[in-house]
């Protein structure tokens, strides 16, 4: 039986606890106590089921990541936009962590974070994030979505803009080293595409996959970037979609 994801587990636990409290209050002490005890057992079972494969260390680390990346790793609009990791391709996350460490991707905070992770931990983290599927945060201007869809699905061959779908997939789920974009934060997409060369592939003696996107990011003008970013930020492919990480 598949383990519940953390959000489901939290919600279920909370509901069960609420039910227990109500029962205890309203139904008279002895029956209430029995029902309460049963609930506590159930809550424990739900939590245990979810946590069965995660050690304390990894659990703590997951919670730490979520402090910034959002409750179910759906991302968070902090002072800086903090990207969604839920449903992300494990290989992509791993590559980014390595890029942070090697300063090919510049971010002081993520440099520190990545340094604190062992390979085993990275495996566990990426697998966990891949399993999450919360709804997108949303908030992008809706009027841009239709244009963004067109660029994403068809590209703009007259101006040499490739169709994002060719590599990122028709529902932007990504594949292997190619990141999922579905449900990514709108301001994060804007920042990333507008600043591509300032943030990625920063070590000219160690070129990396960031080079693939560089010409694409360059070809898109600002309003095209806004449109595409708005579109992908709305996407929420169901779990069964091919290349959606299960």
């Amino acid at each position: 039986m598949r383990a519940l994801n953390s959000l489901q587990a939290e919600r279920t636990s909370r509901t069960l606890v609420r039910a227990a409290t109500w029962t205890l209050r309203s139904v008279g002490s002895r029956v209430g106590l029995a029902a309460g005890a049963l609930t506590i057992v159930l809550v424990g079972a739900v939590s245990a089921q979810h946590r069965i494969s995660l050690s304390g260390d990894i659990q703590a680390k997951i919670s730490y990541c979520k402090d910034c990346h959002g409750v179910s790793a759906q991302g968070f609009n902090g002072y800086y936009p903090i990207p969604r990791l839920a449903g992300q391709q494990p290989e992509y996350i791993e590559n980014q962590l390595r890029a942070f460490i090697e300063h090919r991707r510049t971010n002081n905070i993520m440099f520190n974070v990545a340094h604190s992770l062992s390979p085993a931990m990275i495996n566990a983290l990426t697998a966990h994030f891949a399993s999450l599927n919360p709804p997108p945060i949303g908030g992008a201007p809706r009027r841009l979505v239709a244009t963004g869809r067109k660029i994403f699905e068809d590209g703009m061959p007259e101006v040499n803009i490739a169709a994002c779908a060719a590599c990122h997939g028709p529902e932007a789920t990504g594949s292997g080293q190619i990141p999922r974009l579905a449900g990514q934060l709108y301001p994060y997409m804007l920042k990333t595409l507008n600043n591509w060369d300032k943030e990625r592939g920063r070590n000219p003696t160690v070129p990396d996959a960031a080079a693939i996107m560089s010409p694409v990011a360059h070809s898109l003008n600002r309003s095209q970037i806004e449109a595409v970013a708005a579109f992908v930020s709305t996407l929420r492919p169901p779990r069964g979609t091919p290349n959606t990480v299960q």
Partner: protein
Amino acid sequence: MKPMNFRRPQGQHRSTFRSPAGTALILPAAVLALSFSSPAAAQGNVPKAEADAKLRYCEVCHGVSAQGFHGYYPIPRLAGQPTEYLKNQLQAFVEHRRTSNIMFNVGHVLSPAMIDALTTDFNQLNPKPLGGAPKENIDEGKNIFENGVAAGNVPACASCHGPQAKGNGPFPRLAGQLYDYITAKLTNWEKERGQNPAQPDISAVMQPIAHSLTQPQIKAVAAYLSYLE
């Protein structure tokens, strides 16, 4: 080794590189096997800058030096393809005889002069194969390629595609083609090619062959081809 510069200003010549052997740590290294060769002068009346820009655009999906790329879908190698084959495919996309929404859009905006320029450029590129296929059944693949499969009435691939799988005229080069691309095409031949029954095309030649090959045979021959240079 010269430092690699990915931001080529328009109009500059591309220089020749060889990829360092054995550096395929992760895919990025393989993807960045740079093997640019000098292009022939632009064909017809397409300004060189425009042709170069269009070529770079193609390479976004089809990979550096058009060696192919593992996108969401496997995106085929175009390097070294016969120009006639490429032109036929572009035509097939535009006429919906070969179904791909993305390539339909791409093909639609290409002028004949541009197509000439592009196909010539692609034909002259010669990067190393992307590689990565499983190696266990390469010998069997080689056998199928050179001798066919008598029991299934499958002729030797080499008879049309050439002894080194370099293709010729309307027959595509298979050498160095992506393993998962070949596999997907052979498996799905009738669903993707010759899609207009009122306008049968040369893809019909491959239909019985693709049909007769079993999955293990497809994988074996695809693996073999993917390593050919």
